[in-house]
């Protein structure tokens, strides 16, 4: 069973070729796909996140790990049964209208995915109407919004208002983050949480889903 450990280590090192090779070996040996995901791939990212938070790993390394993880997931995902993915929570993510910066958002998507969420990435410059439509379509547990500009911060308020008007506010938790934000702002616009960085976002999202 040391292969799980090797797989996790390969994810940590961002070695996508090795991740693919070990994942294939495990699949061929008849290992349950969900175990490969949980004990191997995500276990690797579970080491990455705290190291990133502690300043021992840096953005380029995290991106390499996330890429390696994604390569492994590509192989395993088609093998997961409906039962396996039934209790996976959905996380909807986008930068708000007018905000065209995707670096922070992409990092959040990777880290949250590594927390075992099914992340629906709406991309950048997402209008309130698009958020509402996506909530109706994907029925997420959590909606994440980010903004890098002070000018687009108010887009979060507009989005939360429209979600409320659409009668969907109680069906989702809303997390916000981004360079110009601060906790009081998140509170003032009626978000459920302010995330200082991608790892904090994953931790909050995980805690929120566990409560439900």
């Amino acid at each position, binding site marked *: 069973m040391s292969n799980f450990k090797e797989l996790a280590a390969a994810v940590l090192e961002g070695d996508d070729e090795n991740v693919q090779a070990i994942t294939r070996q495990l699949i061929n040996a008849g290992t349950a796909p969900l175990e490969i995901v949980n004990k191997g791939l995500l276990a690797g990212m579970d080491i990455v996140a705290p190291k990133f938070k502690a*300043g021992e790993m*840096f*953005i*380029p390394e995290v*991106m390499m790990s996330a890429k390696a993880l994604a390569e492994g997931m590509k192989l395993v995902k088609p093998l997961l049964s409906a039962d396996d993915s039934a209790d996976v929570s959905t996380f909807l993510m986008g930068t708000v209208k007018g905000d*065209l*910066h995707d*670096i922070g958002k*992409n*990092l959040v998507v990777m880290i949250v995915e590594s927390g075992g969420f099914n992340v629906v990435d709406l991309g*950048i*410059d997402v209008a309130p109407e698009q958020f509402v439509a996506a909530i109706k379509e994907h029925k997420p547990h959590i909606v994440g919004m980010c903004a890098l*500009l*002070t*000018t687009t*911060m*108010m887009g979060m308020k507009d989005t939360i208002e429209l979600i409320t008007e659409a009668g969907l506010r109680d069906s989702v938790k809303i997390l916000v983050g981004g*360079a*110009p934000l*601060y906790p009081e*702002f998140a509170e*003032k616009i009626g978000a459920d949480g302010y995330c200082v960085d991608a790892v904090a976002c994953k931790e909050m999202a995980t805690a929120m889903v566990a409560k439900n």
Partner: protein
Amino acid sequence: MVIVGELINTSRKAISEAVDNKDAQYIQQVAREQAEAGADFIDVNCGSKVFNEVESMRWLVSTIQQAVQTPLCIDSPNPEALEAGLELIMHTVPMINSITDEGPRFEAVIPLVQKYKAKIVALCMDECGMPDTAADRMRVVGNLYVKLKAAGVDDDDLYFDPLVKPVSSVASAGAEVLDTIRLIREQYPQVHFMCGLSNVSYGLPNRKYLNRLFVAQTMAAGMDGYILNPTDQGMMGLICAAKTLLGQDEFCMGYLKAHRKGFYGE
């Protein structure tokens, strides 16, 4: 070389609190320190005060001008906040940070540039978003240049910001900025530059080394304006040294002055 002192920005906790508490003394002290450290402009940014940016801008501009006569750089993407600051300016010509080639923003900011005869920072950005390559940036620069000239802006009052992205996520980000600077210099030799430099090192350790190297690299390519912390003696010393090596420091007087001030201690 134009240095815009970046410290009066409410995204910094101490400044945010000073604005909330109307602590004029603290703001004035930060303004004075930057002026004394050699800032040519003092940036005023209270964009994070989204619920009362206009009022905060008025208070900051009045407060700073009671302490120093250094020109101000009024910094907001919000035209209302820009105007609130600009109409209180007492000393010399202000700088506006910033305009872009996004339709409504351009239309709202350009009358302010004309009315206050302001120097203007133009971000290499349009509706298509953040440019990746030097070619993307030059397309925006070309369009903006034509429009700004048509609005009566002098080359000498125009500061292009090539938009610096983090190399931690976009490996080519630094190289593309260097190419952009060279291309702008070639095609529009009379215009100036401005940039927030420290984005380049976001997400990486030992950021100050990357920032300082990038100053040297961009200066060699023709960059002549930065928004940075002028009280960082290491950075300011490096800029003096780079000017000397580029032949912009007659008799090395700037370099020697920086030496005597102890800027090269370590």
